[in-house]
């Protein structure tokens, strides 16, 4: 039997199953100045004009003063509806992930239509490499927050819902681009000790470490659980910022690098 044909010179670095030796790895930040921002589905888009327009005004204003922004959109109630129908049919998680990708796409397109006159441009996964063009042209690129895992999304232990949804997708965009922070625009001031929509005694947490959050083992969380897991091992993203889009000025502050809302950081 013939031997495997291998490329003897594997390039400059020797590679093992986990990659190259950490000391030999000098990561390159792809587009570190981008502000990667997620617009919540249930928290903003499902609220319609009243909630969304002021947020878009702030994003457009920041873009016009030269802050480069990438927007990823969430799903919301229509995603919950299709997850609900699909779960009843016992469809696999991979199919739910595919189904779940259509609603954030609609939301991205709505945001594009609203911001088109200010350079809003809808981009798909395959357009991701054209980000530098859009940024240099002064555009405001908008994409689905959903990562492209689709049918290849892994099943969770006790849930049929895809664990990597729009919070994760936006985080992973930022991580690839080499950004240090991801901004999540929701309808709360950030993280609370309990769901503030259901418990009035819940108190605001301005800053918390990923470890502490994991340790608390909360039954509910403001971002997808996998995001906290990824934050622990990411190369670039060190902080998640959750801000309230319903309060005027909060989005602008976050885009200017202020520490409003809740910061979840890696130690």
């Amino acid at each position, binding site marked *: 039997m013939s031997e495997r044909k291998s490329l003897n010179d594997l390039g400059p670095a020797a590679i093992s199953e986990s990659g190259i030796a950490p000391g030999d790895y000098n990561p390159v930040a792809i587009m570190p100045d981008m502000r990667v921002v997620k617009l919540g589905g249930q928290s903003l888009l499902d609220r319609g004009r009243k909630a969304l327009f002021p947020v878009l005004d702030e994003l457009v204003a920041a873009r016009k003063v030269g802050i480069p922004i990438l927007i990823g959109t969430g799903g919301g109630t229509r995603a919950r509806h299709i997850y609900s129908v699909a779960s009843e049919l016992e*469809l696999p998680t991979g199919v739910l992930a595919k189904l779940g990708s259509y609603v954030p796409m609609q939301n991205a397109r709505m945001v594009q239509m609203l911001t088109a006159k200010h350079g809003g441009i809808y981009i798909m996964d395959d357009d991701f490499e054209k980000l530098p063009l859009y940024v240099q042209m002064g555009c405001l690129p908008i994409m689905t927050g959903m990562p492209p895992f689709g049918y290849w999304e892994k099943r969770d232990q006790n849930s049929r819902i895809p664990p990597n949804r729009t919070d994760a997708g936006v985080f992973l*965009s930022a991580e690839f681009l080499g950004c240090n922070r991801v901004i999540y625009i929701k309808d709360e001031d950030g993280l609370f000790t309990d769901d503030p929509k259901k418990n009035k005694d819940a108190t605001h947490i301005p800053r918390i470490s990923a470890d502490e959050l994991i340790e608390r083992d909360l039954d509910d969380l403001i971002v997808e659980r996998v995001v906290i897991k990824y934050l622990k091992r990411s190369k670039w993203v060190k902080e998640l910022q959750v801000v309230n889009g319903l309060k005027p000025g909060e989005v602008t502050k976050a885009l200017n690098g202020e520490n409003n809302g809740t910061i979840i950081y890696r130690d």
Partner: protein
Amino acid sequence: MSNKLLTGDGRTHIESKLMRESLQNRDVIGDTDSIKDRRILPDITVVSIGGQSIFDRGKAAIIPLSEELATLHNSREHAMLIAVGGGTRVRHTAAVALDLGLPTGGVAQLVGAMEELNAVILNSLLAQHGSITMPRDHFWDLPLYMNSGILPIVISVPPYHFWEPPAEVGQMPAHRSDFGVYQQAEVLGTSHVIYIKDEDGLYNKDPKEHDDAVLFEKIALDELLENPPETNMIDWAVFTSWKTGKNVKKIQIISGLNPGQLTKALAGEDVGTVITKD
């Protein structure tokens, strides 16, 4: 299920079990689960052909295997989906990319192209028997292919692309070819996945380096997870994901260098290593 639109809290909802709920809430998402997942195309067997183990050996390994595949396909006894790996060119891509300091997602974006090459190679040999290269997510076309006597060939690596999550260790994407094959089988609802490699099966350590390596003939997934082999011939993510999966019942690892092994495996014989899950 309902079709009502509800307002009153500043948002417009569609009535459903998940309405207004946080999808991070364990109780809420727990309600979406059940003991099984629907099987979409249960009669297909997913057959993975290793890149390094088969394709990188060139003609001597590829021709006998492709002939066996042609015979099996022409018999029309089995519905197969063939997935190909990329092999040493994938490793080379990763070595150069990481030396350049590209992120994990960058590596993941690049490697699929090297698998496409092997899909074209295999299709060049099998097209006369009805093979076709299928974009991996076009599997809603599979009923058409199966009913028309077409043998679909896909690439293996999952489409995580730039969005590959940071790995627990190192910079290499954790979701690689073997995982992609498993996950495709899982979502289709197939119960049997066959990995064709260049060893008789899965060993407790690399048989190419250790003479005393022991072959696992039959092993349960839980047992394997408790006793991981020193060197993994199959991406470990396959087994950790399979733990939570519902559909795949049997993963078989066979040698593609021994003609006839694939035929036996498809006939249900316990050749190579058979890993089972209850």
